[in-house]
């Protein structure tokens, strides 16, 4: 599918200790990454909830990246391993729903890996360009949901 005229939206949930810092460093180094990427800072990818990803897709996001620390380097010991399992669960849910499982992916990026962060975002963009926009979008633009809808507690 052609990427022309499609404003792809990629939501990147980034751990504050690694991938978020890597994105920051990429900025500081003037490394350019696709403007399609919208970064959401989370305290650890262990905070990543299946619902966050589903809500992103329901709101029209074309892809979701979850970026946490290198295996074994999680600030909270194993948050990134929990995130890997949740990303797998979202993949299963996407298949059931009728969306492509490739729309979500887990990355491991340390705070010093600015160029790897850029490469990951470019890779994700290539993936959505290959599979096309999220068919749940109302128009060409993603529309953020008004409420979060996450159960409390």
């Amino acid at each position, binding site marked *: 599918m052609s990427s022309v005229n499609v404003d792809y939206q990629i939501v990147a949930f980034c751990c504050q200790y690694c991938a978020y810092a890597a994105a920051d460093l990429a900025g500081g180094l003037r490394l350019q990454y696709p403007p399609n990427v919208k970064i959401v800072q989370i305290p650890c990818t262990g905070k990543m*909830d*299946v*619902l966050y990803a*589903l*809500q992103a*897709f*329901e709101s029209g996001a074309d892809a979701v990246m979850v970026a946490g620390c290198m295996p074994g380097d999680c600030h909270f010991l194993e948050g990134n391993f929990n995130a890997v399992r949740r990303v797998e669960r979202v993949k299963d*849910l996407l298949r*059931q*729903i*009728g*969306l492509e499982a490739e729309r979500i992916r887990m990355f491991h990026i340390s705070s010093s890996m600015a160029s790897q962060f850029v490469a990951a975002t470019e890779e994700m963009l290539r993936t959505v360009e290959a599979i096309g926009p999220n*068919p*749940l979008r109302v128009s060409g633009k993603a529309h953020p949901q008004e409420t979060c*809808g*996450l*159960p409390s*507690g």
Partner: protein
Amino acid sequence: MIIAEQKPFEEIKNLIEPAQRVLVVGCGTCVTVCFAGGAREAAILAASLRMASKLNGDPKEVTDVTVQRQCEWEYLDTIAEQINEADIVLSIGCGIGVQAIAERYPKTWVVPGLNTAFLGLPAEQGVWVERCAACGDCILGLTAGICPIARCSKSLLNGPCGGSQDGHCEVNEEIPCAWQLIYDRLQSLGKLEMLYEIRPPKNWRTSRDGGPRKIVRPDLRLSEEE
């Protein structure tokens, strides 16, 4: 606790197929802690059904609500308005929750989103195992606190059978032989002599064989005036 698991998504989709407004009702007790039907699972299921139906070209209005316990009238009464507005209620409580909704709301079409599996406990993270079959006449005092009704594949009262192999049940290698467990525990407690006693056949009338069961506690009943 009651252990359940979600039905396959396709089956759930078929169950709600005729409806336009769907209310997913979660339960905040047993099925929350076995990750089958709590608030989070209700929200995930509702979002999944909204997206799937939209992709199917038949967008449904799917909302979700979770009550503390689906098996009590008082909690069900708090969501009367939402239930009455829905074309169909998809309960992700256990089978008791589904029936409680059906009983409390005679005009509501309610379908189950879970398969209620057994009474058990979380043995480790993500693993649940059966522990009790609610036989109505507990014999754990005779079996070192290990239930042969629920945990022996043949519910033997005088085990083990000849199929017990190296601690495993002959039905499946993954099942620990309940009677081996009972033997080992009685031995470690120095009470092996309890096994000399032959247990007579159990009276199953307190179990399902006596029909649906009921308990009445006169001391707790409210008088007519109340």
